C-alpha cells in the first residue's frame, strides 16, 4: 500500500510552526487547552515577579530563568501542535492541489452550458465533463460512462470506470476524465467536500475534541486542581514549620507536577492521527469514528470484492450425462453471448476453448431475445427459435423447469452439491424442460487476504463474511480465507440486521461498503468505511472514505485508531510517573536549609537548591520537544494479547517515566553547575 509520508523536519514546515507557536500564546487560543492555560497563567505571574524584582533592585536572575523556561514549556507545547497542523495541511494540500484552478461547465436550466470557476459550484448543480476535463468537485454521475484517472488522489495509475446507476457512480474532485462524456450532479458545496471536512480536523481551532480526549482532559484538569491545592497548602505547612518558600519556587513545583507533558502534546497527538489517516488516503468525517475504530471487534465484509476478486470464473462444464457434454457447452455459449457480466464472459471464453473455436467472432443469432440477469429471477438466458435456454442458481432453474413439469433429479442435486462443497458456484443450464448440466464458477481469493484476516484475529477482531451465495459455497470460501463466521444467502437488508444484532450484544461493528443498498448498514455501523468509487449515498452514510477503494485497508484504520489511543495513554502514564523524580528534586531543595536531615531525600545529590529547582523545570520543558516525534509518529502498535501489550507499554512508559527524569534532572543539574547558571 502506498503511503505518502511528508518529511516534517524541513524549514518550510518548522519556521511557520515556530511562528504559530508564538501566535498561539494568545490567552483565547490557550483556553482551549485547560492544562496549558493554567501554565500560562502562572507563567505570567512569575514574569511579573521578575519585573518587580528588577524594579526593586533584587537579584532577579534565578526567577528570570525559571520564568523563561516556563515560557519555553508553553511554546514547546504550541510548537508540537503547530507542527502537526502544518503536516496535516501539507498532506491535505497535496490531495487537493488540482482543484482550485479548475473550471467547470455548468448546465443551465435551459440545457445550455456555461463555463464557471470550480469554486462557484454549488450542491445540486449539474455539470458536463468531457475528455481531458478535471473534475471540479465531489459528485454523482447521473448520465454516461467514462474512464477516469484518479492517480492525483489515490496514486493508482490504472484508470477506473465511472458510470451512472450502479455502485460506481461517485467521482471525486481533483480527478481527471480520460475519455467519455459524463453528466455529474455536484454533491457538496465548496468547502464542504470530504477533503475540506478532513482539513478542518487537522486545524486545531476548528477541531472538535473526541469523547475520549474530553475524558482524558478531565483527568488532566483534576490532577491540575490537586496539584494546585498541594502547592498552595504547602506554603502554609512550610510556614508552620518555619520555612518560607518563595512564590516562584512554588510555581516551579506546580508546573513540574502538573501533567504538562501530556497536556502539551495532547492536541498534537489527535491531529497527527488525522494526518496519518490522510497519508494512507483515508478521509474521515469524524474524529470519533477514528477513535472507535480502535475498539472495533466485529468486521462485516462482503465476500465479493473484499475477500475474493470480484469475478467468478467458469472453470468446468459438468454435463448431467456424459453423452450430451457438447449440447451443454453449446447452450451455455449461446446463452452467454450477450451476457456482459464477467461470469458470462468467462463462460464464453471457456466454451470457445472447449469447442476449439480460438479467436473467431461469434455473434448472437438473428431474432434472439436475451433475458438479462435480474436479482429477482436470479437467472439469465436467451429465447431463440422456440428454444428457451436459461442458466442460474439451483432454485431459479428448479422453478423454471417446474413450469414444464420437470422435477429436479437426485443426480442434479448431487452435481450441484458437489460443486458447492468445493467452494465453487454451480450454475445450472436448462433448455426448455431439460436440465443439461452445470457450469462450475470458481471464486478466486484476493492475494494476501487470509494473512490480513489472521492479523485481524490477532487484534481481537472477529471477521464476518457476507455473501448471497448458498451456505455450502460460502462455507468453503470462508474456510479458505480464514474468516471467523459467515452469513450466506444474504439479502441487502441482512447487513443492517446483522449489525444491529451484534451491536445489541455490545460489539462495535465496522463495515465496508460501496453500494447504495449498503447505505443503511453503513449508517448503522460504528465505523463505516465507504469506497471512494462507491455511490454518493454510501459515501454520505459512511464516516470514513477510502480514496483507494481498497477494502482490505480497514486494518490500517484500526491500527491508526489504536495508535492514537495508545500514544495518549502512554504519554499520560509517562507524564504522571515523571512527578516522582520532580518531588525528590524540589521538596528537599525547599526544606534542606532548615532541616538538613531531609538530605536523605535528595537521592540525585543535586548541586544546590536553586540548581535543583531549575533542573526540574528545564527537564519538564525540554521533554516536550523531545517527545514531539513520538507524538507525531504515534506509539507502535503490534497485534498481540492485551496483557502483553499493556505489560510492554507499562514497562516503557511507566517504569521508564519513573526512572528517566532522575537521570535527566541529574544531567541538567550538572550542566547548570558547569555553566554556572545559578
Amino acid at each position: 500500500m502506498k503511503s505518502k509520508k511528508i518529511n516534517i523536519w524541513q524549514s518550510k514546515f518548522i519556521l511557520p510552526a515556530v511562528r504559530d507557536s508564538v501566535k498561539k500564546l494568545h490567552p483565547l487560543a490557550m483556553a482551549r487547552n485547560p492544562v496549558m492555560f493554567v501554565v500560562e497563567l502562572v507563567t505570567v505571574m512569575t514574569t511579573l515577579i521578575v519585573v518587580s524584582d528588577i524594579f526593586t533592585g533584587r537579584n532577579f536572575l534565578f526567577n528570570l530563568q525559571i520564568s523563561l523556561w516556563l515560557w519555553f514549556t508553553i511554546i514547546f507545547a504550541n510548537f508540537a501542535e503547530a507542527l502537526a497542523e502544518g503536516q496535516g495541511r501539507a498532506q491535505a494540500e497535496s490531495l487537493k492541489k488540482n482543484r482550485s484552478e479548475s473550471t467547470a461547465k455548468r448546465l443551465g436550466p435551459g440545457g445550455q452550458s456555461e463555463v464557471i470557476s470550480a469554486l462557484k459550484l454549488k450542491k445540486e448543480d449539474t455539470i458536463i465533463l468531457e475528455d481531458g476535463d478535471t473534475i471540479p468537485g465531489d459528485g454523482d454521475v447521473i448520465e454516461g460512462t467514462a474512464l477516469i484517472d484518479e492517480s492525483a488522489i489515490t496514486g493508482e495509475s490504472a484508470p477506473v470506470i465511472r458510470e451512472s446507476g450502479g455502485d460506481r457512480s461517485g467521482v471525486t474532485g481533483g480527478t481527471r476524465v480520460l475519455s467519455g462524456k459524463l453528466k455529474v450532479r455536484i454533491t457538496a458545496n465548496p468547502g464542504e467536500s470530504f477533503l475540506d471536512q478532513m482539513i478542518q480536523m487537522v486545524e486545531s481551532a476548528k477541531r472538535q475534541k473526541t469523547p475520549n480526549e474530553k475524558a482524558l482532559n478531565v483527568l488532566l484538569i483534576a490532577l491540575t486542581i490537586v496539584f494546585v491545592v498541594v502547592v498552595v497548602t504547602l506554603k502554609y505547612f512550610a510556614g508552620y514549620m518555619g520555612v518560607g518558600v518563595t512564590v516562584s519556587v512554588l510555581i516551579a513545583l506546580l508546573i513540574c507536577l502538573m501533567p504538562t507533558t501530556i497536556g502539551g502534546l495532547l492536541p498534537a497527538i489527535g491531529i497527527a492521527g488525522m494526518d496519518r489517516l490522510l497519508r494512507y488516503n483515508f478521509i474521515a468525517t469524524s474524529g470519533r469514528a477514528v477513535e472507535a475504530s480502535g475498539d472495533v471487534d466485529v468486521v462485516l465484509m462482503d465476500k465479493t470484492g473484499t475477500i475474493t476478486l470480484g469475478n467468478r470464473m467458469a472453470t468446468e462444464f459438468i454435463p448431467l450425462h456424459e453423452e450430451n457434454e457438447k449440447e451443454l457447452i453449446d447452450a451455455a455459449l449461446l446463452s452467454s453471448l450477450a451476457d456482459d457480466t464477467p461470469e458470462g464472459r468467462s463462460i464464453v471464453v471457456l466454451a470457445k476453448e472447449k469447442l476449439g473455436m480460438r479467436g473467431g467472432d461469434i455473434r448472437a443469432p438473428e431474432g434472439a431475445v436475451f433475458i438479462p440477469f435480474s436479482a429477482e429471477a436470479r437467472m439469465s438466458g436467451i429465447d431463440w427459435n422456440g428454444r428457451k435456454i436459461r442458466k442460474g442458481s439451483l432454485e431459479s432453474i428448479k422453478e423454471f423447469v417446474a413450469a414444464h413439469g420437470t422435477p429436479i433429479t437426485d443426480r442434479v442435486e448431487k452435481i450441484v452439491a458437489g460443486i458447492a462443497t468445493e467452494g465453487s458456484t454451480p450454475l445450472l443450464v436448462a433448455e426448455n424442460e431439460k436440465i443439461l448440466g452445470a457450469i462450475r464458477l470458481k471464486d478466486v481469493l484476493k492475494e494476501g487476504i487470509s494473512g490480513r484476516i489472521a492479523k485481524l484475529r490477532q487484534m481481537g477482531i472477529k471477521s464476518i463474511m457476507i455473501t448471497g451465495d448458498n451456505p455450502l459455497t460460502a462455507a468453503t470460501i470462508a474456510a479458505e480465507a480464514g474468516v471467523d463466521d459467515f452469513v450466506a444467502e444474504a439479502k441487502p437488508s441482512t447487513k443492517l440486521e446483522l449489525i444491529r444484532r451484534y451491536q445489541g450484544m455490545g460489539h462495535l461493528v465496522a463495515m465496508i461498503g460501496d453500494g447504495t443498498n449498503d447505505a443503511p448498514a453503513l449508517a448503522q455501523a460504528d465505523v463505516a468505511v465507504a469506497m471512494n468509487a462507491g455511490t454518493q449515498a454510501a459515501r454520505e452514510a459512511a464516516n470514513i472514505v477510502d480514496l483507494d477503494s481498497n477494502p482490505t485497508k480497514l486494518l490500517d484504520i484500526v491500527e491508526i485508531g489504536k495508535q492514537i489511543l495508545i500514544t495518549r495513554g502512554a504519554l499520560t502514564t509517562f507524564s504522571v510517573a515523571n512527578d516522582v523524580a520532580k518531588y525528590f528534586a524540589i521538596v528537599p531543595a525547599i526544606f534542606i536549609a532548615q532541616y538538613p536531615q531531609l538530605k536523605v531525600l535528595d537521592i540525585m545529590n543535586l548541586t544546590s537548591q536553586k540548581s535543583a529547582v531549575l533542573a526540574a523545570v528545564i527537564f519538564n520543558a525540554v521533554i516536550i520537544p523531545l517527545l514531539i516525534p513520538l507524538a507525531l509518529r504515534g506509539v507502535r502498535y503490534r497485534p498481540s494479547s492485551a496483557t502483553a501489550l499493556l505489560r510492554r507499554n507499562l514497562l516503557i512508559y511507566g517504569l521508564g517515566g519513573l526512572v528517566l527524569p532522575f537521570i535527566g534532572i541529574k544531567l541538567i543539574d550538572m550542566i547548570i553547575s558547569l555553566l554556572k547558571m545559578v
Partner: protein
Amino acid sequence: MTLNDWLCILLLPIILIILAFGLGEFMAKVFSGTRTFLTPVIAPVEQLLYRLFGVDEKEDMSWKTYALSLVIFNIVGIAALFILQAIQGMLPFNPQKFGAVRWDTAINTAISFGTNTNWQAYSGEQTMSYLTQMLGLSVQNFLSAAIGMAALVAVIRGFIRKTSAAIGNFWVDLTRSILYVLLPLVIILSLLLVSQGVVQTLSGSVTAQTLDGGRQIIAVGPVASQEAIKEIGTNGGGFFNANSAHPFENPTPFTNFLEILGLLLIPAALPFTFGAMLKNRRQGIAIFAAMLILYLGGLSIFAANEMHGNPLLEKAGVTSGLNMEGKEVRLGIVNSVLFAHSTTVTSCGAVNSMHDSMMPLGGLILMFNMAIGEVIFGGVGVGLIGMLCYAILTMFLAGLMIGRTPELMGKKLELFEMVMALVIILTPAILLLLLSGIAISTNTGLSSLGNSGPHGLSEIIYAFASTAGNNGSAFAGLNANTIFYNLTTSLAMLAGRFSTIIPALAIAGSLAGKKIVPASTATFPTNGLLFVIMLVSVIIVVGALTFFPVFTLGPFLEHLLLMTGKTF
C-alpha cells in the same frame, strides 16, 4: 515476637479469607433476592417492615430516585440524632443525669455517627445518656453501615445490568443489609464478647472499694451490643472514651482478635459479593487480592517500626527496643499494631492503643491508609466503591495503553464516569489538605495542638484524614472538641460521605444504562495479576503524589529528627 503474636499475624489473614469468602457468597444471595438459610426466619419480618412503611418492594429506582431516598434518609437520621442529644436531659434511661450536649459537639456527633465516621470529640461515658447511646448512636451505627452497603449494591448492579434505567430499590437494599447481614453478625459477636467478660447492663455505674481504701466509681453500661456493631459496621465509636483500649470493651487478646476480625469482615467479604453477583468470581478475588496486598504491605512496614521501637529510649536503657508507649500491656505490640492498622484501613476507627504514640513512620502508614480514601477494605460498602473508582482510573489508563477506548468489566468508561470517579477519589484528599492548611495557619486551629513541630502537623493531618475518610479514629494530642474543629471536621465528614455515595450512584446509573462489551482477546482481563499490580500501583502513586510534601514534613521529618535525638 511471642508465639501468640505469630499466631495472630498468621491466623488473621487465613481466618479472614475463609469467613469473608463465605459471607461474601451469602451477601450476594441476599442482595440478589435469592433464598438463603435465614430466609424462613427473616422474610416475614422483612415483609412486615415493607407493609409497615408502605415500601413497594418491586419498585426499581433510577439512580436519582435511589440517591434522593438515600440522602433524605441519611439526613433525617442525622437530624434526629442531633435533636436526641439536645433533649437527652428530659428523657429516661439517663442514670448519670447528663444534660443537653453542647451544640457544636452535638452537630459533630450527629454527623459523625450518621456518616459512619464515629469521630468522637466527646468522652462517651461522661456525655451521652444510655438512651442516646442506644437509640441514637447504636441505631445510627446500624443505619449508616446499611446505607453504605445499599450504595455499593446499587453500584454493583450498575456493572451487572445492561441498558437498564434502574439500579434497584434503596429501601429493600437497606432493609436486607440490616436484617440479613448486620443483625445476625452483631448478635453472634455480642455473645462471643459477653462470654469473654465484656459488660452488658443498663445500670448506671458500679462503686468499688479500692485496695488503699478509697472509693472508685466505675462506669458500666450496654457495652457489648454497641461494641459488636462498632466493629461489624466499621463504625468505631466506643462506649467509653478509651474505646477498645478499655478493659470493659476489649478485655482479652481473644476479644481483641475477634474485634479485629469483626471490623475487617464485611469490607473484606464485599469483593467476593461483587464477584459472585458479577458471575465472575475471579474478579472479586482480584480486587480482594489488591486490598490484601496493600493491607499486608502497610502492616509489615508499620510492625517493623513498632518492633524496632524508639532508639532514644533504647539508648537510655529503658526498654528492650519495643515501642510500648500508649499501648495496653495486656494486648502487647502485635495486637495493638494489628488493631491500629486494621482500624485505619477499614474506615472503622475504633482504637485499642494511642495512635499518637506510634513511631512516626507507623503513624505515616496509618495516615496513608486513611488519606487514600479508605479503600484497603475500607468502610462497609463505601470502601469497595472507592476501590472500584481506583479501578476505573486504572482501566482508563490501561485501556488507552492497549489501544481501546477504556472499559471496565465490559462497561465503557467515558467522560461522565471519569468525572464522578475523580470526584470520589479526590474530594476527600483535597478537603484534607485545604482544611489542614486552614487549621495550621490560624491561631484557633493551632491552639488545640498538644505538640509542636512535625508531630503537631501530623496531629492536624491525622484529624482531617480521619474525618474526610470517614474513619473516626483520633491521633489524640489534639483537643478536637472546640467549635473550630467540631465544625471543620463536620464538613470533612459530610463531604467524605456524600462526595462518595452520590457520585457513586451516578456512576451506577450511567453504567447500568450501557451495553456490556463482550470480552475478546483485545480486552485486558481485569481479573489477572497485571491488573492487581497496576491497581495497587495507581493507589500508591495517587496517594504519594498528593501527600508527598505533607508526609515529608510531618511524620517523615519527625522520624529523621528522632534519629538525631530530637523529639516533640
